[in-house]
């Protein structure tokens, strides 16, 4: 499958920005079942400073916002060729030690509710158990947009009983780590079958199983990723993999709008 | 050089100059009090005004006496222009720009601060005042001596000098402005002994009695005094002298940096428009108006220097 992606992020500020930097994690990861062609990142009213690979292997662009700007637009896009792997990425590789993915973070800290959920997991194999965890997560946290807060923790989402894909991924990761498995957050694109325009980026989880290696699970859609899923960035939780992380002086009163198109190329 | 360092040098030497100016005012006030009969509160008030610290003092609600005025000028921690706080400010900035100073200059500054802190730890009695002021004058002079004797004549020196002369010009202009009414021609005709005392106060507070006598003899004439303090390029505390020095130092910077920034243009304008006329033109404009205009130009130049040389982010 070949997907054509175009993603526009626009920040508007009521007060001009005095100075600002943003880390962008918006370039799909090369390797595994993905090959990326002609990917570009363009900035309006900002300047790219540098690029590097972070400690999870993500491609990061650092941009500086123009002084006195009130509107910054980041446009990225290109084509990604995907090979069906049923969500199985295989053996862990790279310098990031596997144990790091067992670390609890602020957002994936296991509280009483997360632990209770994790205890319900059963199955004959790790793979079975993870599929069950995916279902349990989806049952415990109903998918509902606009009713959750972006800074919710896994525990918050279980307590509230609803959330979005980010919350599903956090709950899944928190439980997997309770069960002793390395797990990570994935931020990426999902092509919905019935349309080109997407509301937002998608998020799911990956867990590293002793025999299969890394395997993806999308609790929001109760499935493992297929060729409609494009992996962009990974990390211990959302804060490591978020598409834009920034700091600025000035530029109060931020408004954000996002347009994403994902279409299949014939 | 870092913008921050230029800023630190500028302020280190402004504070040093301020410490000296405030000391001189204390000595002037003390001198006046000794040689006059009757209440001197009004005189002390005008000294505090001259130092630009009257409002701060008034806000404390303290009664104005000779003692309270001297203490406020000399060692109050609430008065940012007191001798002690100025020396502390100079030393704090010296610490900040330590890498730009010679060891001698830094040590002289540090020693000056340690001595001032020791001498001004407690209220200074009237009896000890002359000796204390003497030591402080000596210590600040040592910093100047080390500066002139050991520092390279480069941009470091230029920023130190610009700070010195901006503070000094500001001080002279302020003294004149507080006392401008005693220099007005309409008062001249009176020629009372009170005026003589006022004129002497002015000259004393800028260490200019000797220089004035040398130039004009023993007769005080307010127009001569105004000319001497504003336009006489030989008098090291006159506005003309200080502004010329600032212009010179800015032009050395321009030569080093290879650009002529806005501040240089502004200072040239100031010289041309305000310091190249004769004293009668000053009085025609009105001495107070004239001084206000000069003070506001100087403050604008100070802000422009900050900007041109990136003192702050």
């Amino acid at each position, binding site marked *: 499958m070949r997907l054509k992606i175009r993603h526009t992020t626009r920040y508007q500020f009521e007060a001009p920005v005095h*100075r600002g*930097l943003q*880390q962008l994690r918006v370039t799909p990861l090369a390797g595994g079942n993905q090959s990326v062609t002609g990917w570009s990142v363009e900035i309006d009213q900002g300047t790219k*400073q*540098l*690029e*590097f*690979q*972070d*400690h999870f*292997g993500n491609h*990061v662009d*650092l941009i*500086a916002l123009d002084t006195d700007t009130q509107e910054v637009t980041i446009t990225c896009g290109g084509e990604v060729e995907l090979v069906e792997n049923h969500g199985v990425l295989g053996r862990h590789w*790279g*310098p*990031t*030690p596997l*144990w*790091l993915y*067992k*670390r609890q973070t602020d957002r994936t800290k296991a509280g009483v509710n997360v632990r209770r959920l994790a205890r319900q997991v059963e199955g004959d194999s790790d793979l079975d158990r993870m599929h069950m965890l995916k279902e349990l997560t989806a049952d415990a946290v109903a998918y509902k947009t606009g009713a959750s807060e972006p800074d919710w923790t896994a525990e918050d989402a279980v307590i509230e009983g609803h959330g979005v894909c980010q919350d599903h991924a956090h709950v899944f990761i928190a439980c997997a780590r309770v069960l002793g498995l390395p797990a990570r957050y994935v931020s990426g694109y999902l092509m919905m079958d019935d349309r080109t325009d997407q509301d937002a980026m998608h998020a799911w989880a990956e867990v590293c199983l002793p025999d299969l290696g890394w395997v993806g699970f999308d609790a929001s859609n109760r499935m493992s990723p297929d060729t409609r899923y494009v992996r962009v960035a990974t990390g211990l939780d959302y804060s490591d993999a978020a598409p834009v*992380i*920034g*700091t600025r002086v000035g530029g109060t009163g931020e408004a954000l709008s996002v347009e994403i198109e994902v279409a299949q190329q014939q | *050089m*870092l*913008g*921050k*360092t*230029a800023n630190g040098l500028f302020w280190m030497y402004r504070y040093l100059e301020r410490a000296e100016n405030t000391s001189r005012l204390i000595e002037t006030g003390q001198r006046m009090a000794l040689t006059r009969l009757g209440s001197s509160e009004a005189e002390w008030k005008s000294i505090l005004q001259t130092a630009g610290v009257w409002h701060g003092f008034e806000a404390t609600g303290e009664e104005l006496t000779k003692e309270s005025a001297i203490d406020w000028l000399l060692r109050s921690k609430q008065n940012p222009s007191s001798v002690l706080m100025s020396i502390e400010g100079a030393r*704090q900035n010296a*610490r*900040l720009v*330590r*890498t730009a100073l010679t*060891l001698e200059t*830094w*040590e002289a500054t*540090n*020693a000056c601060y*340690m001595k001032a802190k020791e001498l001004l730890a407690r209220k200074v009695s009237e009896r000890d005042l002359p000796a204390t002021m003497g030591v402080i004058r000596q210590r600040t002079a040592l910093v100047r001596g080390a500066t002139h004797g050991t520092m390279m004549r480069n*941009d470091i020196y230029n920023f130190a000098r610009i700070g010195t002369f901006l503070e000094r010009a500001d001080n002279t202009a302020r003294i004149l402005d507080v006392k401008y009414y005693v220099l007005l021609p309409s008062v001249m005709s009176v020629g009372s002994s009170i005026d003589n005392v006022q004129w002497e106060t002015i000259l004393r507070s800028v260490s200019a009695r000797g220089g004035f006598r040398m130039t004009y003899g023993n007769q005080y004439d307010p127009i001569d005094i105004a000319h001497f303090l504003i336009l006489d390029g030989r008098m090291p505390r006159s506005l003309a002298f200080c502004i010329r020095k600032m212009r010179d130092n800015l032009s050395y910077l321009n030569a080093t*940096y290879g650009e002529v920034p806005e501040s240089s243009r502004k200072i040239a304008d100031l010289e041309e428009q305000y310091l190249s006329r004769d004293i009668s033109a000053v009085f025609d404009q009105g001495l107070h108006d004239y001084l206000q205009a000069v003070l506001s130009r100087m403050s604008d130049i100070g802000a422009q220097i900050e900007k041109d*040389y*990136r003192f702050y*982010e």
Partner: protein
Amino acid sequence: MDQNQVFDEMWGREENLRAPYGLFKSWFDGEEPKRLRAKQREAEELFRLTGITFNVYGQAAAEERLIPFDIVPRIISGLEWQRLSKGIEQRVRAINAFLYDIYHGQEIIKAGRLPERMITDNDAFLPHMIGVQPPGGVYTHIVGIDLVRTDDNQFYVLEDNARTPSGVSYMLENRETMLQMFPELFARNRVQRVENYPSDLRSSLAACAPSVAGSSPTVAVLTPGIYNSAYFEHAFLADQMGVELVEGHDLRVIDGRVAMRTTQGYKPIDVLYRRVDDEFLDPLNFNPDSALGVPGIMDVYRAGGITIANAPGTGIADDKAIYSYMPDIVEFYTGEKALLENVPTWRCSEPDSLAYVLDNLSDLVVKEVHGSGGYGMLIGPTATKKDIAEFRKKLEAKPGNYIAQPTLALSTVPVFTRAGLSPRHVDLRPFVLVSPNKINITPGGLTRVALQKGSLVVNSSQGGGTKDTWVLED
């Protein structure tokens, strides 16, 4: 402590004058005590004037205080020093190799020589450094190895300082002061020079510049500012190296580099000798509330645009929990036995060790794994029953936070007192400079001395003083 157990570096154990002190002794005997007392006062005046002060942590009024200086030099023979410096060099090489491994393949863990949990549970491990190639392959550009001596030939490493070791300005100023006050001593004794340290530091740092730097790299020192306890040292080193002393707000990321705001605009920095802790270095990547750092500097570093000295994340190598594995670490990376010994250490995280430590608290020194500056430690032999009881509770609550060591009979060196020479316990911090092709150890280092009779605490924050340290040319 029983004085007979203690090795004195001037007199040995048997009141036999040791050779390195021979010339000093004959000079001292010919001096009037009154003159020396005057000299001692003069030295203090010199220090005060120069402004060599530090601010004491944990005290409300940040008064600047002097570290007391003692005029009797601590003297080490050339041969002793040769042996020591070999051990130091070996250890510093191992520390750098360890850091590379920990942030790349973690072979030492895979080989079973270091338990994984020593890293996984360790806050000093900085994930942002994973996979990063520091310019020139150097992690610890400046290292201080704290040594203590217990006998003629017995030195122990007390701790490694691989983050931002301080105190080198005292080493230099102590020598400068001695040269000014007692020139005749240096005419008699051939003392190895320490004065080259600042220029060595500059060239060592420049040799680690990133590939984007030109032929003459721009070096700068980053300080938290004038209120930091070691500000004097930061200014001193910048001054002596002839480089700019910058604060976070002087710097920003411009054109992909970290640049400093000069009177003529922004100028890129190639090598930043930072005296700001990792946590405060970059509010974009670490503590967002830090006003001391530079947003994005870590990104410039990861993109190869700047050298940060020491590299972020080096704290994992001087962590007290890792310390007890140093002999294994040295062996693993150099293939040789460690030349310098560690102080025997009980890791309270291990149940058997904990039991032993709890049984012997009154004989042991117990330290917090992450503490520094002599705070939060128990010195068993001098502690009261109440201190011990209180510490026992802390230890039982969080054993993993502590390690314990025997109280060593630290060597003594005489100090000059009203009553003449009198022995006091000392330690030694040699300073090591690391560049891609060279490890440079300044002969001697900083000798810290516990000025209170019998005290073993040499930290300046707890009443310790310093001495000039001589290594003789043999």
